[in-house]
């Protein structure tokens, strides 16, 4: 009886324990947020929890009894994972696609772990599922972004490669151009030294190497100041005023050894668009030109000297005949003799001009400077030319300065020659009834002599040649055949030798104004 009661009590306890356990399992199953399936060793789903039902949409009625692969898109892959689990006890975090009841494909991560009984026999597995939709979405978005970025980078890379190829092509072309330019520069017979923007040497052509006794490889990349140990370079540097600058000026550079040689040196800029990217020193050998010029000058001098003596003899002989010193001559003979006399005079003038030019070119046009009145020179010249002005019916006007002119030192003879030349031109190339006005002016630095005429003027096209040797304007030749074309050349040289300048303004058929300046302080 007692035993029976005891058994009933135990049975009641077991029943209560089971009921508690059932309740606990149900509560746990309802609470557990992780979808879990219980799989038997045959791969059949034998149990599920609420989370699994909610997540997949399949309830026990449908899913229990189905194979594990029923839930997934890639059935072979799931079976593989299941087999791996049976072999390795656990498979963790495998990404697969779950096909839900509503056919929605859900990316999930699954983990499968085996179950064993108390005798260590495998009695199935638990399959846990984690929804990785958000992670996948994020991952896909990230991958998309990475892909987009990769595509962008790929495009950028292609663009960059294209640019590089273009750049390489351009560089190749530039190199080709540089090579061509270099080849051209090297082949030039003038000496060339090319400098970059920083005044560093980038090229020395063979002619310059030879002239300056340097090797390009020794001086490349250096500034000229760094290579003054080369004596020829040093002389060149001094000749160009110790600076590599484009001034438009020409410099003369002389090398004494092994034979005396003359070079015309020019510094020119290298421009790329509007930017100056370098400089070139060009050394043109003018030794031969100099020699020819010297020989020519010498010849002219000898010829002129040789001609002047007989011409003087002819002049005085004709003078005597015309004056009747050697007998009576008829009026008809006088006319011929006068023409001969005038021609002889022109010859003498020409010879004198040639000798002056010769002296100028030889640097022997020695100036004997003294303080002398310009007004006096002008007045004397006017007196001398009064005959010509009357003959040409041109009025000579001298506007004397109202203030006292500053005293200046001049070569009276040469300045007279200048003023005489300019007034003579003003009369000669004028019209009957025209006038030549001479005036003087000064400032703190210069005294100015202005000779203005209202004659035939000079064509604009010929302005730049007016001071050249033997040049005569077209209308001047027509107007007077006697000019030598040397007068203005001589004038310019005389004025510049005094440290002054001469220039003019002229308009054809309206007249010309010549102005020359002479410095007050010398």
């Amino acid at each position, binding site marked *: 009886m007692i035993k029976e009661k005891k058994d009933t009590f135990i049975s009641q306890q077991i*029943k209560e324990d*089971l*009921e508690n356990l*059932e309740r606990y*399992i*149900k509560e746990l199953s309802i609470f557990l947020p992780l979808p879990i399936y*219980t799989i*038997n*060793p*045959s*791969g*059949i789903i*034998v*149990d599920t929890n609420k989370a699994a039902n909610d997540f997949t949409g399949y309830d*026990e*009625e449908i899913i*229990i*009894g189905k*194979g594990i692969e029923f839930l997934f898109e890639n059935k072979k892959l799931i079976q593989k994972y299941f087999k791996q689990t049976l072999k390795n006890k656990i498979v963790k975090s495998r990404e697969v696609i779950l096909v839900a009841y509503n056919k929605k494909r859900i990316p999930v991560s699954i983990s499968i772990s085996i179950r064993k*009984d108390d005798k260590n*026999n*495998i*009695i*199935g597995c638990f399959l846990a599922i984690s929804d990785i939709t958000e992670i996948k979405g994020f991952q896909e978005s990230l991958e998309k972004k990475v892909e987009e970025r990769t595509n962008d980078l790929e495009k950028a890379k292609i663009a960059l490669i294209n640019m590089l190829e273009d750049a390489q092509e351009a560089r190749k072309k530039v190199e080709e151009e540089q090579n061509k330019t270099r080849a051209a520069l090297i082949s030039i017979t003038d000496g060339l030294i090319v400098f970059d923007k920083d005044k560093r040497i980038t090229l020395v052509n063979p002619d310059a190497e030879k002239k300056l006794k340097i090797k390009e490889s020794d001086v490349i990349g250096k500034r000229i100041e760094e290579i003054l140990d080369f004596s020829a370079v040093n002389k060149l540097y001094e000749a160009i005023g110790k600076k590599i600058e484009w001034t438009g000026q020409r410099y003369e550079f002389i090398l004494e050894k092994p034979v005396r040689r003359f070079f015309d040196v020019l510094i020119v800029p290298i421009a790329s668009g509007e930017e100056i990217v370098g400089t070139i020193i060009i050394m043109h050998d003018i030794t031969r030109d100099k020699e020819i010029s010297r020989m020519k000058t010498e010849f002219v001098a000898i010829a002129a000297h040789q001609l002047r003596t007989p011409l003087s003899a002819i002049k005085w002989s004709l003078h005597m005949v015309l004056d009747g010193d050697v007998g009576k001559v008829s009026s008809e003979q006088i006319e011929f003799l006068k023409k001969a006399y005038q021609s002889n005079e022109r010859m003498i003038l020409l010879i004198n001009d040639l000798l002056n030019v010769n002296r100028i070119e030889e640097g022997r046009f020695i100036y004997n400077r003294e303080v002398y009145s310009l007004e006096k020179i002008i007045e004397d010249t006017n007196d001398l030319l009064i005959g010509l002005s009357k003959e040409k019916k041109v009025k000579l006007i001298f506007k004397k300065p109202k203030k006292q002119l500053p005293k200046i030192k001049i070569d009276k003879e040469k300045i007279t020659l200048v003023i005489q030349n300019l007034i003579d031109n003003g009369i000669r190339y004028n019209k009957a009834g025209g006038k030549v006005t001479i005036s003087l002016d000064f400032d703190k630095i210069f005294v100015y002599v202005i000779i203005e005429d209202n004659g035939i003027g000079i064509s604009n096209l010929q302005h730049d040649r007016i001071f050249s040797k033997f040049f005569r304007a077209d209308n001047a030749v027509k107007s007077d055949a006697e000019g030598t074309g040397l007068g203005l050349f001589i004038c310019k040289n005389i004025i510049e030798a005094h440290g002054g300048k001469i220039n003019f303004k002229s308009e054809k058929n309206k007249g010309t104004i010549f102005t020359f300046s002479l410095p007050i302080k010398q």
Partner: protein
Amino acid sequence: MLDKNEVEEILKIKGKTRGAVFHTDVKYVLDKKGEQGLDELRKKLEALGQKNIYGKEIKSTGWYPLGWRILSLLLIEETFNWGGKEIINMGMSAPKHSFIVKTLLRYFVSIEKTFEESSKYWEKHYSVGKLEAPEIDIKNKKLVLHLMDFKIHPILCAYFKGYFKAIANLVVKTDKMTIKETKCAFDKDLYHEYVIEWE
């Protein structure tokens, strides 16, 4: 239509069953007919002067009169005018929701293991009768079950057809499985024989 007299006769059936069977009935009715269907059953039970066998006080692991099991099935069949097919389906559904079955899942390793333990399985559910598996032919994909000493009510014949098939389905992966009651205690046979075959 069930009347009190009939119910009294049913309740005279000897033997007990686990409360889990009422839970699986509730689950099935709720799935098919909803709360309204369940209320209908409760009212009928009340009208018949019977206890609410669908309430929370019924525990899965508790033992209850076997007559209630028959009453529940007959009441459901009558109330919803279900035929044998629906009773089979009820049987098929039951193992999927039964707590008792869950406690026995450890035996659901293979068809041999499962049905070798069939007597144990039966004992977990019913206090009378005996279930045996005299033939488990894996090669020919055939299983024979004998339910002996269990001449309770013919409605259970249909119910067990579904139930045994569902159990077999938990261990045999197939889409094609059939079950036939080849012998029946109500047909003068000594026992019920169920033959399960699959492809």
